[in-house]
C-alpha cells in the first residue's frame, strides 16, 4: 500500500520524464539542444561501465568528504568555544560578521592562486565555505539552551565540560543538524563550480569537458548524476537527523 502511495506521489516526475522523451522523439525539440532521455540513460550506463563516472566521482567525493570533515570540526569546536568563553565570542564575532556576507563562490580565484588546480584548492574552498553555517548553527543552538536546565545541572555539581557535553550539545543538535544540511548544500555548489572552472578531474570537470566537446547525452548524464547525488546526500542527512533526534517529541 505504502509502495503504491510512494509511486503515486512521484508520478509527476515520471510524467515529466515521458514528456522529455516525447518532445525529442516527436521532433518538437532538436536533439542537438535536448538529448532524448533514453539516449542520456544509455550514455550514463556506458560511462558507468567504462568507469568514467566512478573514477571522477571518487575524486569529487573525497574532496567533499575532506572539506566537510574539516568544516565540521572547525565549525563545531569554534561554535562551542564561542558559547563557553565570552572572550572567544568577542574575538570571533566581528570576524564572522565580516566573512558572512562574502559570496563564497568569490573565493574560487583565491584558492586557485593559493593551491592551484589540484584537490587542495577544492578541499580548502569547501572547508572555508561550510565552516560558517556549521559554526553559526552550533553557536545559536548551544546559546539557546533553557537557563533553568543549566542551573539545575550546575547546582547538582556538573562541571563546565559536563554541562557543555551533556546539555548544550544535545540541546543544540537540531540546529547543528540543520546547519549541516545547509553546509552540505554549500559543499555541492562550491565543489561543482570549482571543478567546472579550475580542475583536471572530478564530476564537474567531466561535465565541462563533455560540454566543450559537444557530446550532450554524456553531459546530461553526468549533470543528472551530480544532481541525484546531491539529492541523496540531503536525504541521508535527513534520515540521520531523524535517527539522532529520535529522543525528541515529534513536532
Amino acid at each position, binding site marked *: 500500500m505504502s509502495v503504491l502511495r510512494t509511486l503515486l506521489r512521484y508520478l509527476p516526475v515520471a510524467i515529466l520524464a515521458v514528456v522529455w522523451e516525447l518532445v525529442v522523439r516527436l521532433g518538437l525539440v532538436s536533439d542537438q*539542444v535536448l538529448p532524448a532521455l533514453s539516449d542520456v540513460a544509455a550514455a550514463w550506463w556506458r560511462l558507468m561501465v567504462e568507469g568514467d563516472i566512478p573514477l571522477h566521482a571518487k575524486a569529487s567525493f573525497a574532496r567533499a568528504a575532506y572539506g566537510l570533515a574539516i568544516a565540521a570540526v572547525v565549525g563545531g569546536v569554534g561554535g562551542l568555544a564561542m558559547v563557553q568563553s565570552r572572550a572567544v565570542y568577542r574575538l570571533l564575532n566581528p570576524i564572522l560578521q565580516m566573512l558572512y556576507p562574502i559570496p563564497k563562490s568569490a573565493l574560487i580565484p583565491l584558492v586557485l592562486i593559493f593551491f592551484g588546480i589540484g584537490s587542495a584548492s577544492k578541499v580548502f574552498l569547501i572547508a572555508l565555505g561550510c565552516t560558517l553555517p556549521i559554526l553559526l548553527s552550533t553557536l545559536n543552538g548551544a546559546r539557546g539552551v533553557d537557563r533553568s536546565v543549566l542551573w539545575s545541572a550546575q547546582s547538582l555539581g556538573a562541571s563546565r565540560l559536563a554541562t557543555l557535553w551533556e546539555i548544550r550539545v544535545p540541546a543544540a543538535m537540531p540546529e547543528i543538524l540543520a546547519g549541516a544540511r545547509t553546509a552540505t548544500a554549500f559543499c555541492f*555548489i562550491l565543489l561543482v563550480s570549482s571543478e567546472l572552472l579550475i580542475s583536471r578531474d572530478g564530476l*564537474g570537470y567531466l561535465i565541462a569537458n563533455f560540454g566543450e566537446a559537444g557530446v550532450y547525452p554524456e553531459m546530461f548524464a553526468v549533470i543528472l548524476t551530480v544532481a541525484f547525488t546531491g539529492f541523496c546526500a540531503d536525504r541521508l542527512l535527513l534520515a540521520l537527523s531523524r535517527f539522532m533526534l529520535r529522543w525528541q517529541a515529534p513536532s
Partner: protein
Amino acid sequence: MSRPGTTATFGADRILDVAVPAAILVVWLIVGHWKLVDPFLVPPPLEVFKRLAQILVDGQLPAAIAGTLYRAIAAFALAVAICVPLGLAIARIAALRWFFDPLISIGFPMPKVAFIPIFILWLGVFDTSKIVVAAFACSFTILATTVGAASNVERAFVWSALSLGATRSALLWEVVLPAALPRILTGLQIALPIALITTIAAEMIMGGAGLGGTMMRAGRFADTPGVYAGIVASGAVGFLLVKCLEAARRWLLSWHPEQRETR
C-alpha cells in the same frame, strides 16, 4: 538585540567590533611589510587598496559591480515574480500541489550550478543565460518556503474570514498573504544570497564583464591584488544586498509583533 544584564559589557563589545578588524589589518600590514608570507599569495594591503582605488576611479569596478548587481537582482526579481504566486497557488489548489510537491522536494536539494552548462547550451553565455541560471538556483528555496508558509496559515483566521463573508481574493490578499509574509520573507532572505552566489559562479564560468568574470581573469593571470580587490568588492555587494532585504522586512512587517520584540 541587547540582552538584559549585558549593558555593562555593551561598550566593550562595540570597541572590539572595531578593534578586531583593525588588528587583522595591522597583522596584514606587518605580514605585507616584512614579506612574512610570499607577497604573491598575500599582497600588502596598501597594494590591494591602491588597486581598489584605481579601478574605482577608472570605472572598471563600478561597471563590474553594476553588472553583477543588475544580474543578481533581475534573477531574484524574476524568481520572486514567478515563485511566490506559484507557491501560493500550490498551497491552495490540490491538483497543483500533487504535481509540484515531489518536483520541489527533489529539485530543492539538487546543486543547481551543475546545470549551468545546460543553460549555456540553451541560452548562450550572455545576460539572459546568467539571469535565468541564478533565478533557477534560488527559485526552489522561494517555492518551498512560500508553499510551507501559505499551507500553515492559522485555520481559525481563514474560517473567521470566510464566516464573515470574505471572497476568495479577499481571503488571499487580506488573510493568507499577510499571515504567510514573515516566513515568505525569511525564504527570500535565504534566496537572495543564493542568487548572488550563483550569479558570480555563472559569471566566472561564462566569462564576460561583472565581478565573477573580472575576478576569474585576475586569478588566471595570477593578478593577486585584482583577486583580493574582487573579494572585498563582492563582500561589500553581499553586505549591501543583505542589509537592503533586512530593511525591506522591517518596512513590510512594521505591523507585525516580531518588530516590537526586537526593539
